[in-house]
């Protein structure tokens, strides 16, 4: 399994994990699940809106998966990213990778998340008691992105 999916509907993270395990028995699997948190800079968040660039979003995630797969000799990978309006507790993003060894699996999954944060065309807006607010890019996300020695992915 080597696919990326961009969708407005919620997804079943458990089913994603099962599908990846079933497709690739006998190796090291690392997964990341990101869900909408109910706080952000001390303001209660009620919902999140993710704007995306149709076409480019799908292409950038697919290219990211392929690049990471090549760099870490992955046996399989899967990225799911939502867009649209999400409620607190819902999954936003899911990434799973399969490698022969754990070092490669951890690095690959972390690279996917770090690069995706800054290079995939999604923009987050939070809805809270203060109204709607676009989220700025965090300095630590830029730092984490720099650890991976690749050019811009888009």
């Amino acid at each position: 399994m080597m696919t990326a999916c961009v969708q407005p509907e919620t997804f079943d993270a458990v089913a994603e994990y099962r599908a990846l395990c079933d497709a690739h028995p006998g190796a090291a699997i690392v997964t990341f699940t990101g869900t909408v948190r109910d706080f952000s800079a001390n303001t209660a968040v009620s919902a999140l809106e993710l704007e995306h660039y149709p076409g480019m979003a799908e292409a950038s995630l697919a290219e990211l998966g392929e690049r990471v797969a090549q760099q870490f000799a992955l046996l399989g990978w899967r990225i799911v990213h939502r867009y649209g309006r999400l409620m607190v507790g819902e999954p936003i993003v899911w990434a799973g990778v399969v490698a022969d060894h754990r070092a490669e699996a951890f690095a690959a999954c972390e690279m996917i998340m770090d690069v995706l944060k800054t290079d995939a065309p999604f923009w987050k807006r939070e809805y809270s008691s203060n109204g709607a607010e676009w989220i700025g890019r965090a300095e630590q996300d830029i730092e984490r992105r720099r650890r991976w020695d690749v050019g811009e992915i888009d």
Partner: protein
Amino acid sequence: MITIKFFSMIREALETDVLEMEWAPTLGDVAAVKEQLIAQGGAIWDEVLAQDDLLVARNHRVVLSSEPVSDGDELAFFPPMTGG
């Protein structure tokens, strides 16, 4: 013809999702397209498109202002991405 899309804060500030622009040899690179947009749009467009952290994509890839532009291209302007 080139298609130009705007996302997130840029889209909101310009009150524009997408527009089309007749391609001409004078629109040789991204910077020239930006100048043309500002000439058409006026002061607000000047301010918004001058933002330091503005990103531009050509055919779904982030590029520099010096990137050549061809007839049929899709450009897009947007702020730093915040996925995940």
